[in-house]
């Protein structure tokens, strides 16, 4: 798929309130840059992320979706991210099986102290998704912007 210079991907990042959202805030406090394509949605725990939300994001035109949560073992709710980890593994495997590009989805564990990691992850992820081009495989034509 040819990538035009003006292609700006829409990236949705789901961040858990306790670790990764705080990590995102920390990268802000430290003025670490990452692309404006990334928009963050706050959820109480990574386990709140229903795979349906990811599918909905893609349906509505998102080009990449990333889930950030506490490191396994450090979940504020003790076990939430373990369940999230299993679900996301299965979901990503199924998306791959259906022919959706693997690089459009990602899970990254970011603690509240890892502002730099958050910024770096968002930069990498945005670059990878930009390279893939717009999401055509999972989009819903009714939701297309143009």
């Amino acid at each position, binding site marked *: 798929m040819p990538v035009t210079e003006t292609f700006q991907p829409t990236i949705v990042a789901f961040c858990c309130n306790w670790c990764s959202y705080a990590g995102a805030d920390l990268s802000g406090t430290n003025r670490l840059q990452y692309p404006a394509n990334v928009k963050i949605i706050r959820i109480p725990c990574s386990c709140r992320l229903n795979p349906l939300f990811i599918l909905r994001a893609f349906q509505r035109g998102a080009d990449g979706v990333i889930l950030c949560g506490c490191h396994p073992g450090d979940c504020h709710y003790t076990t939430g991210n373990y369940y999230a980890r299993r679900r996301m593994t299965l979901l990503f495997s*199924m998306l791959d099986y259906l022919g959706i590009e693997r690089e459009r989805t990602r899970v990254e564990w970011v603690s509240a102290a890892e502002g730099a990691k958050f910024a770096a992850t968002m930069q990498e992820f945005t670059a990878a998704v930009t390279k893939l081009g717009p999401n055509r*495989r999972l989009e819903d034509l009714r939701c297309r912007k143009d």
Partner: protein
Amino acid sequence: MQERLKQKAVELLENGGADRILGWKTGEFFYDLTPAVFTSSAEIEREFVFSAFSGANLSKYLIAESRKGGKVAAFLKPCDSYSFQQLLKEHRILRENVYIVGVQCAGMCDMEKLRARDCDGVTAVRENGEKLVAETLYGERIVDRKDVLLERCTVCKSKKIVAFDELIGEQGEEQDLGRFAEVERLEAMTPEERYAFWRGELSRCIRCNACRNVCPACSCETCIFDNANSGFRNKAAADAFEENLFHIIRAFHVAGRCTDCGECSRVCPQHIPLHLLNRKFIKDINTFYGPYQAGAELDSPSPLTDYTTADCEPSAVLTRGGNS
């Protein structure tokens, strides 16, 4: 075999072992058997059928039947018994109101496959050991049963009946006939090929919802696709919903609970190979989280409501084999 089942059914009704019997009867055609509830010996004599076309999984109907008062007896083949035990695990069936007669199975047959073997105008089919004798308008045709089995029966995962109050036929064992072969074939394709394959298949979906209605795991009081609060309420075939959302969501919801009974593919009027979605999840679960068969045991933890601290990361999907 049919006679033994009929006798058992009548016996249960007459000696008070059950008030209703759940079994099969002929539908529109002789090969189109439909699940049915029998309440009298006369009905059983007249209409009860058990043949090479009794593919229907009766366990789902026990959800409602076990709550109607009295006792209901049901005939379950090995694959059905896994679904039954899984439903028990999920507290959907009241076990005390159910009497299970486990029925050993030689594999159920597919009428389409029979027709493809030069059998036109079939009026009846008899079972004769490992052969099927088809009476057609043009004479008798004899085929090997194993050549006309339903797809799911060709890779039958188990002849073991995991839950029963009594058995008709012998108890069997689990077996491995390579049921993941087709999944592996798809996995070996490039993403573009896979995408094209699934678009081709899923775009034929007409949202008849037969797969959902027949699936024992799809037995929610209110399905998410009928739930206004879920944000995914959707009834009719609409642009790209089926390809993008309906089937993947349904497969995800039954992941870890699907016993691979194969009913979804059997009933699909468009012949979409839905089992390839469910088996993919089962294969993934086996690979990542250890071999697991839903419904095999009453108290094993279900993989999606369980975890270990050493589970693999989702990035394992990115880095494992397969074309990219």
